[in-house]
């Protein structure tokens, strides 16, 4: 069950900090811009500036550092693989170690760690976005961002609604999974021991009821939406209308400054 508690994505951390109060559109746009800058940046100095900016945002957001770092756990494997591959395969720069068949060059070490660093910043910036923005606000922002694309046949509202529903039901399904898991454990089920095939098979008593309940929920939800005359996005107004504030302007300005500095260095 510890597995189920480690999903940071979409785990909104409620708060009233400056970062929380930003308009979700601003946050989405800035996160996107940050990622672009991150990929353009080449020098260690630019990365340091970007890392500093990230650290500043984390501090401002008042989200416990532990929670932010927890988002990195799933990519630990990829991180170590990136570093190891670069360190052992790259042939650039000065030779540092030469032992038997192992040759390590300075270029590989630098590149490996830079890439890993980039990945860390990438994940950090996106988890800060999801930690400080409620899923609903985020999909609202996505819907508005996609709206201009409607002209080309992109169903912006429908996509946003699907995302809202999916996000809304992640915790519900996790809770349900935990409940069913417990019920089967109470009947002596064993989800942990045995070979791969046996373990995959032992998941059936968990997955089948979970699927059945997901379909039942989907059916009930569709019925409830129809009962309230849902008919898609055409002419639909919103209860909470997003509005930019002065805060968003400041945030954009700070961010532009950081981006310019990072790219200039």
């Amino acid at each position: 069950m510890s597995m189920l508690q480690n999903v940071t994505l979409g785990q909104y951390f409620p708060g009233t900090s400056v970062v929380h109060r930003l308009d979700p559109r601003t946050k989405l746009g800035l996160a996107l811009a940050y990622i672009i800058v991150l990929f353009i940046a080449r020098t260690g100095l630019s990365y340091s500036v970007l890392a500093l900016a990230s650290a500043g945002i984390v501090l401002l957001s008042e989200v416990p550092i532990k929670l932010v770092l927890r988002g990195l756990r799933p990519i630990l494997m990829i991180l170590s693989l990136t570093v190891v591959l670069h360190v052992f395969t790259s042939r650039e720069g000065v030779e540092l170690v030469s032992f038997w068949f192992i040759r390590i060059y300075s270029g590989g070490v630098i590149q490996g760690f830079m890439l890993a660093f980039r990945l860390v910043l990438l994940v950090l910036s996106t988890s800060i976005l999801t930690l400080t923005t409620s899923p609903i606000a985020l999909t609202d922002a996505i819907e508005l961002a996609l709206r201009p694309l409607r002209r080309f046949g992109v169903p912006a509202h429908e996509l946003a609604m699907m995302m809202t529903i999916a996000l809304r039901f992640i915790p519900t399904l996790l809770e349900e999974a935990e409940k069913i898991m417990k019920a089967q454990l109470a009947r002596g089920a064993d989800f942990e021991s045995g070979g791969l095939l046996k373990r995959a098979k032992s998941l059936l008593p968990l997955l089948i009821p979970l699927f059945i309940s997901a379909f039942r929920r989907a059916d009930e939800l569709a019925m409830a939406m129809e009962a309230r005359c849902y008919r898609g996005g055409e002419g639909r107004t919103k209860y909470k209308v997003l509005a930019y504030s002065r805060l968003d302007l400041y945030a954009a300005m700070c961010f532009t400054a950081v981006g310019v500095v990072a790219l200039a260095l």
Partner: protein
Amino acid sequence: MPIQLNNVSFTYSPGTPFERHALRGINLSIADGEFIGIIGQTGSGKSTLVQLLNGLIKPTQGTVRVGDVTTTDKGVRLRPLRQMVGLVFQFAEHQLFAETVAADIAFGPLNLGLDPSEIAARVDEAMLTVGLPLEMKERSPFELSGGQMRRVAIAGVLAMRPQVLILDEPTAGLDPRGRDEILTRIGALHRERGITVILVSHSMEDIARLVSRIVVIHEGEVLHDGPPREVFCSAESLSGIGLGVPQATEILRRLRLAGWNVPAVALTLAEAHGFIVEAWRERSGEA
């Protein structure tokens, strides 16, 4: 399998902003063969309490001892414990997964590593105990009615032959007939097998006439613990936390407030009827 809870507390997501104290300092001992009703409002901690009893969750503080197993011990083997303490969850029909009723009921015994003939015998026995006709064995559990599915799920736990049977709201969402049927079966099970039965409910009505002891949980603490007659004497405190007393007791309480000379507690309407008739006779005799 005597059960002993010693100063047990349980906290969900400790150390996070979502921290919630579900149970605080619970002391409870349950002897063999008792029939206990655990009553409390939604969110009072009763479901958490029963999950502690078969080691599905472990107390944040204190100890839970079942027989000679302490669930927080290192290297404790939980599977034998879960065989001895059978737990039927709320809306247990949501756990059904197999293609046939028989296969679903056999899941528990199969996990215990019993041999096929023994499993088949237990499936039959469990189906009869919950009142499912044996012809249903080869049916898909998903074709059955809600009440029947619930009974398949209960049979799935009974087939493990637990010495302690815990049922979390076994009648929630059933129609009155399905409810009575299940409660009657549970009562009979307790009488005939002498196993310990723990019935979790938020309804006094259901439990009053069945159990021999009631434990009232409120905000994670034991508020009352005693035989139904004793617990129902504190009608004010019970309705204060939104639980109320059985209708029969409520009628007597109101009659007493109106100056009638009737006992304070009746568990069934028939019993209340007797008291009222007696008091009526007494009155007319005086006149």
